[in-house]
């Protein structure tokens, strides 16, 4: 059943968020530190361990894949609810900083991508 997949996804999400909350408390940061990352790692772990091959049939996986496919529409809705007006009235400093830093980091992507574990060993 599709709901099994959705439930598994929800379980990973909740556990990940709890871990993120704990890490935030531990670091004394008011926020959820890496909760989404923990949840993803959990889902990837369950999916890769072969555990899911026995327990998660194709239809259950479809329950997860539906939400995966909803990602772009959700991002579109998120974009439509940003405070774009404030971003544009923030002045040239914001534009310069936003554009400059992003492009500089773009340039570093191929440089750092060359680091593979094999070369370090």
């Amino acid at each position, binding site marked *: 059943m599709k709901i099994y997949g959705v439930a598994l996804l929800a379980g*990973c*999400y909740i556990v*990940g968020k709890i871990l993120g909350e704990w*890490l935030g408390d531990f670091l004394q*940061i008011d*926020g959820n*530190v*890496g*909760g*989404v*990352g923990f*949840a*993803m*790692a959990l*889902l*990837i*772990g369950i*999916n*890769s361990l072969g555990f899911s091959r026995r327990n998660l049939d194709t239809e259950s*996986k479809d329950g*997860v894949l*539906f*939400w*995966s496919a909803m*990602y*772009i*529409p*959700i*991002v*579109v*809705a*998120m*974009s*439509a*609810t*940003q*405070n*774009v007006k*404030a*971003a544009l*009235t*923030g*002045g040239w*400093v*914001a*534009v310069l*900083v*936003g554009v*400059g*830093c992003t*492009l*500089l*980091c*773009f340039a*570093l*992507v191929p440089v*750092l*991508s060359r*680091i*593979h574990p094999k070369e370090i060993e």
Partner: protein
Amino acid sequence: MQSITTLISKNDLVFAFLLVGLIMWLSYTLARKVLDNKIPGAAIAIAIGLGLAYLGGDEGLASIPLFSGMALLGGSMMRDFAIVATAMGADFKEIKKAGLAGGLALLIGISVAFFMGGILGYVMGYTDPKSFATIGAGACTYIVGPVTGSAIGAGSDVIAISIAAGVIKSIVATIATPIFAKQMELDNPHSAMVFGGLIGTTSGVAAGLAATDPKLVPYGALTATFYTGLGVLLCPSIFYFIVSFLLS
């Protein structure tokens, strides 16, 4: 007319599904038929979303009661839930391979954004350590900026600039990623994780990667989700300490 708007307001989330569906259809049709797929449909859809947000206020389009459902659909809960779902297609072996490079990318990405952003702000006249650190943190993400600013007691005008810088970073990452994907050699899970760690702004990374190649989204998003947490940790503490030492 009045009864229709009342009905839509009562069913705002369902109306948001319809509206986003229409935006997606329009964008993908435009991409395929007019632009010959040179600009991805996803990027056009997100750009239309940002354009529509300009029509609203603090919450973008959702500031208009008729479109309040957009805030539900595009809220952080739905966004995070869908991001986690994208991990379903990820391969554990690839993630292990990118471990070191991904971690390095996170540290370098946050440092470069912080100091580069702070220096640009300094050049533009924001020369005190608090403004330097807040604008620099805003160059990380639009969450790190205000968190850092309020932690060290920066003025609200500077905090507004830091949010704006973060939002612009997210927009630039979304639109420019597919354009520079070839130059960045962004065609495999490994470089996607490095990319996620260097750029960090989750929505921009995920949207930019989706527009480049949807298969890369989970890898970039995985490292990017640690970026804001790490940024919030480093910027108001060690980085602010370094800045106030250098500027005084």
